[in-house]
């Protein structure tokens, strides 16, 4: 067992008033800066006027899922169930069927993600052997009034657009590198 000793209070801390004054100083400092900052459109402001003023996402953020299409528009997914197996929230439900194309062999007839169950861990993206599922869609904040609003079916997932500036994976990067863009 490890015993962590509590730090002893100094006299100034015991007196209490000095520490309160210190805290209020910070609070009022922010108030003043926000008041004048908002008026002057100064970016030192401490709060964001969300959602009118969206925050830029970091480069590798995970947003809602989308399914990648093949050039002919069919899903790249082969219904291998890797994502559903990796999912810790049991949010993914897949039903497979034989594909008419023998070279593809297997395809999903139904692919449903319950975004209410999803914990945004990204394991499904990591697990996918076909780079068919990604979490780089445009949608990061989803609002709805019914449960069905959060059930993403195969068609809905295929319609999701990639976010501008999304990291598109190795193949795209490689193409850019060859074109001298990076």
């Amino acid at each position, binding site marked *: 067992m490890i015993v962590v000793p509590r730090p002893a209070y100094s006299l100034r801390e015991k007196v209490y008033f000095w520490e309160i004054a210190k805290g209020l100083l910070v609070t009022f400092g922010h108030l003043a800066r926000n008041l004048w900052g908002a008026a002057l459109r100064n970016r030192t402001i401490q709060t964001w006027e969300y959602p009118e003023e969206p925050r830029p996402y970091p480069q590798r953020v995970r947003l809602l899922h989308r399914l990648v299409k093949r050039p002919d528009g069919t899903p790249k997914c082969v219904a*291998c*169930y*890797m994502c559903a197996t990796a999912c810790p929230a049991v949010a993914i439900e897949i039903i497979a069927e*034989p594909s008419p194309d023998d070279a*593809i062999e297997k395809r999903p007839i139904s692919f449903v993600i319950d975004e209410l169950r999803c914990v945004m861990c990204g394991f499904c993206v990591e697990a996918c*052997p076909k780079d068919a599922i990604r979490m780089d869609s445009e949608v990061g904040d989803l609002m709805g009034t019914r449960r069905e609003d959060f059930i993403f079916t195969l068609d809905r997932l295929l319609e999701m657009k990639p976010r501008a500036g999304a990291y598109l994976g190795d193949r795209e990067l490689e193409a850019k590198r060859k074109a001298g863009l990076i």
Partner: protein
Amino acid sequence: MAQETVKITINGKEVVAPKGTLIIEAAAQAGVEIPHYCYHPHLSRPAVCRMCLVDVEGQRKLQPSCSTPVQSGQVIRTDSPKVQEAVREVLEFTLINHPLDCPVCDQAGECGLQNNYQDYGLYNTKFTLPKVHKAKVQKIGPTLTLDAERCILCSRCVRFTDEITKTHEMGIMQRGDHAEIRAVKEVNNPYSTNLADICPVGALTQNDFRFKVRVWYLKHEQSICPGCARGCNIVVDHYRGEAQRMRPRNNNAVNQSWMCDDGRLLYKAIRSEDRLNAPMLRKDGKRLAVTPSVAFSEALQLLEKHAKHTATQGSAFVSNEDAFALAMLLKMMQAPVAASLRESPAGWDDDALLRKADRTPNRTGASAFSGTEDFAVRLKNATLALVIQEDALPDRSLYPQLAGVIYVGTHDCPTAKAADVVLPMAMWAEYEGSFTNFQGRVQRFRPVVAAPEGVVPLWQLASRWSQAFGGKLFASAAEVFRAMATEHPLFAKMTFDGLGELGLCAPSTEQSKEAQA
């Protein structure tokens, strides 16, 4: 005469094995698993896959353990660096032209290549040339799909069709890295699906199970195939409360490692459309669904009123416990014993391998608790008919003196439609019990999926009814079995748990005498 044994050392452990045992078998008995593809206990041993190489002291080269018999004093190592390196290289060689399409392969999760790669994989390929491609998704028969690319040429399927079914459908064509497995004619023998079981990779997969469930989601339960009097030992794989497939389980005394294609599809009857899910009463020519307790007491009233004048048709489809509990009920009611069992539905004749013409799973066991008189004869003097499972009374108008008909069964049929009280009962996959096969071997099956709500096995119904006549209420199938073992010589000295995984033969039966001789 005691069998001659030899002493060998495997991985530093002393093992005593019968003379003539193969190293791979002796090692398996000692708990040492040797990776293999082409070896199968019930097929010949060509030693082509070279995965089971072991180091035998004194031998310059590594020996294939699947075709080397043990010799006295042998010192064998399966874990030396030399063996590990050899196995890794064999696996590397095997995988050179393998397509690695595990995402779409149904075998993924139970694949010999995947499993062995975990232990012996090279993990970074040295091979840079393009792979040789072969024909994929070939429908080679009603039950099988062949993917020649995934094949590792172990030749198990070739040997199965040559040695077991003797139908010779599979063959290996071409040479070198163009060698390819092919079906030379349609694979349409009654045991074809066994090929999908013995194929160590995803080359041969089962059409019925194709893309249904990933195998790692499946749960397994040991059971007995109810398809014929053979009683093949099986494993039922289930997922989310539904049976998904049936596959054979090794029992050398009954079915070796095989089962027939018709047997494999029997799980479909559990959720078929004509399944009886709720009890029904017939009022004014219409059938009304009622709660189990209403139907139960309605039937009990009939039984009490007509106790001594009840004609009963038992069934060879129900378990030993069911048949015994029914016999106990009739005894308490002082009714005549159940009529003789009905003939098996037609379908096939006995064949040389497994299938028996008698398509009922428990004729031996059920006939121990039924009489010899025909049901039609019994009906002449009866005022109440109690029909179990069989479609024995489709036309009631032949017996105008019948005041009531009670039907207890799993599926709807003309008899059920004409019955006054219909009580559904649990199917073999939904409760615990035992079947006695044609050899007299009592084999246990276990519950796989849940029965429809309120549906119980026949032995529970019968024992609850018999309580009203002063009979004993059994609490479990094991308790029924205990009572049965004291009553009938077929089950003498057996206990429910003692049946184990492979079942037991009563001392009086043929097989048991043969075994002793």
